[in-house]
């Protein structure tokens, strides 16, 4: 249907959307700033890679195992995060990212600096495209359901005021762990897709800069909404491709984009108070 290049970009963006949605559960809904989301993504990718190459399991068997494992590891890593708040939490998650990356890079079991290669997807590029976007759709539906359910309500109340939420009878610890579990489970899904898509992974793919990219996506689009992270992932996923002719200045433009967005549209492009939404509402009211 599409050329190979378009497919590659589309699959990449699909994976980024899943990542953005997953981080949005932790940071957007539950308000727990995570600067180490790439760690969970990496854990998912490494789980899949190991299960696929060392245990020789097929794609659809690896998938639930990976999601279960990352959910479990995500909840375990959430425990140190429960002790700390706000900026301390942000730094702790950076720390988790660095430690997880170091484990991948220096423990021989995880392939060390050579990474893990030879992960074979059982189908071609265009089926991979449909599978990826099928999962994207699934995540969007799941996200909708989550926000409307009382889990979403509980998470948002924790974000707004933790003490008040606790007084209202919400088990803050339970819901925070739940947010981390859901977020890292979805990140594990993204990691699974990434590992099969790239067929080769190494620790460098899941470093701290990647965490920043994912966080930028949700802040860029509008944190705490569903449309925001999706749009942010599409725009920031496309940006490197669009700016390819001016390769030299790509990262510079990326940084400048972040600064100007934060300075003039701090709620994100499609956040509650954004220019676009306000204009749109104004037009609708007048009509």
């Amino acid at each position, binding site marked *: 249907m599409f050329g190979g290049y378009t497919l590659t970009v589309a699959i990449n963006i699909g994976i980024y959307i899943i990542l953005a949605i997953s981080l949005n559960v932790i*940071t957007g809904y539950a308000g727990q*700033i995570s600067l180490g989301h790439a760690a969970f993504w990496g854990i998912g990718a490494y789980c899949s890679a190991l299960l696929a190459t060392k245990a020789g399991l097929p794609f659809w068997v690896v998938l639930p195992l990976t999601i279960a494992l990352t959910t479990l590891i995500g909840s375990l890593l959430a425990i*140190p995060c429960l*002790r*700390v*708040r*706000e*900026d*301390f939490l*942000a*730094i*702790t998650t*950076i*720390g*988790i990212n*660095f*430690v997880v*990356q*170091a484990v991948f*890079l*220096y*423990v021989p079991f995880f392939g060390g600096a050579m990474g893990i290669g030879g992960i074979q997807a059982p189908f071609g590029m265009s089926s991979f495209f449909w599978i990826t976007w099928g999962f994207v759709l699934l995540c969007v539906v799941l996200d909708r359901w989550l926000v409307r359910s009382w889990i979403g309500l509980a998470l948002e109340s924790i974000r707004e005021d933790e003490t008040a939420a606790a007084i209202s009878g919400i088990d803050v610890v339970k819901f925070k762990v739940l947010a981390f579990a859901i977020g890292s489970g979805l990140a594990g899904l993204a990691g699974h897709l990434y590992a099969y898509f790239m067929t080769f992974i190494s620790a460098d793919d899941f470093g*701290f800069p990647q965490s*920043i990219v994912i*966080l*930028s996506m949700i*802040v860029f689009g509008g*944190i705490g909404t569903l449309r925001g992270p999706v749009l942010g992932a599409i725009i920031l996923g496309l940006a490197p491709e669009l700016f390819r002719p001016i390769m*030299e*200045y790509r*990262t*510079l433009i*990326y*940084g*400048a*984009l*972040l*600064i100007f*967005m*934060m*300075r003039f549209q*701090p709620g994100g492009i499609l956040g509650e108070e954004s220019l676009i939404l306000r204009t749109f509402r104004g037009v609708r009211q007048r009509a």
Partner: protein
Amino acid sequence: MVYGVLRILHIAHAGIYALGAYIGLLAFRFVPNFWFSLVVAMAACSLAGILVKRYLYMPLLTLPRIVPLIASIGLFIAMEEIFRIVAGPYVLSFPADPGLGSLQLGIVKITNNQLLVFLVTCILLAVLWFIMSKTKLGLAMKATSQDLEIASVMGIDTERIIAANFLIGSAMAGAAGVLVGVYFNSVYPTMGSIPAYKALAIIVLGGLGSIPGTVLGGLLIGVGETLLLGMTDIPFPRDALAFIIMILILMFRPYGLLGKE
């Protein structure tokens, strides 16, 4: 220190540190004198710090904390790229000789550069201590960092105090950039990235905004990671070890070593 007043995780501070190294090198190429380049770098960095505070952080103060954080990261990325594009991606050498001989203390030989770093650090710390504890400016800074609103009610021009705070903090970062550049005889675009995260680990460990805590945290991380690296055979790079130490300590002291709730 910058954190103490505005409560912003100032990642771009490491960008200012790298800027200091580059400006210092530039000045050194015109006038080959170490002290001259140090002063020029500190001046340029304080200017940069004030501009960042004035045009980037002040308008974002009332917004959720994540907004200035992302802006700061964006600025840091952009600065690294500007250094790369303007000065090239390669390592530049910084062959400054401050004109101090090397010192022989028994069996320990302290080289020229080590002596220099030690000397300048002592001078800067002394100046910082003097400003913070002996002048009205220092008192006003402490008041502002404790409670911005009450301080301004008491007649302190908090706007100017915050500016002064950024000025001093950025000048220090610039000096650090020059010192590191001279000590390792190298200046390169990404020299700020490791300090960016490690400095955060250190201030978190000490308790955000507490200056004695920061010194303690720095010592602990420095000694701890070196000991772990030397004594055990965990095959990790030292930065990961630094973060492991930090996470472990935060488990028992969630507000840092000397931090208050």
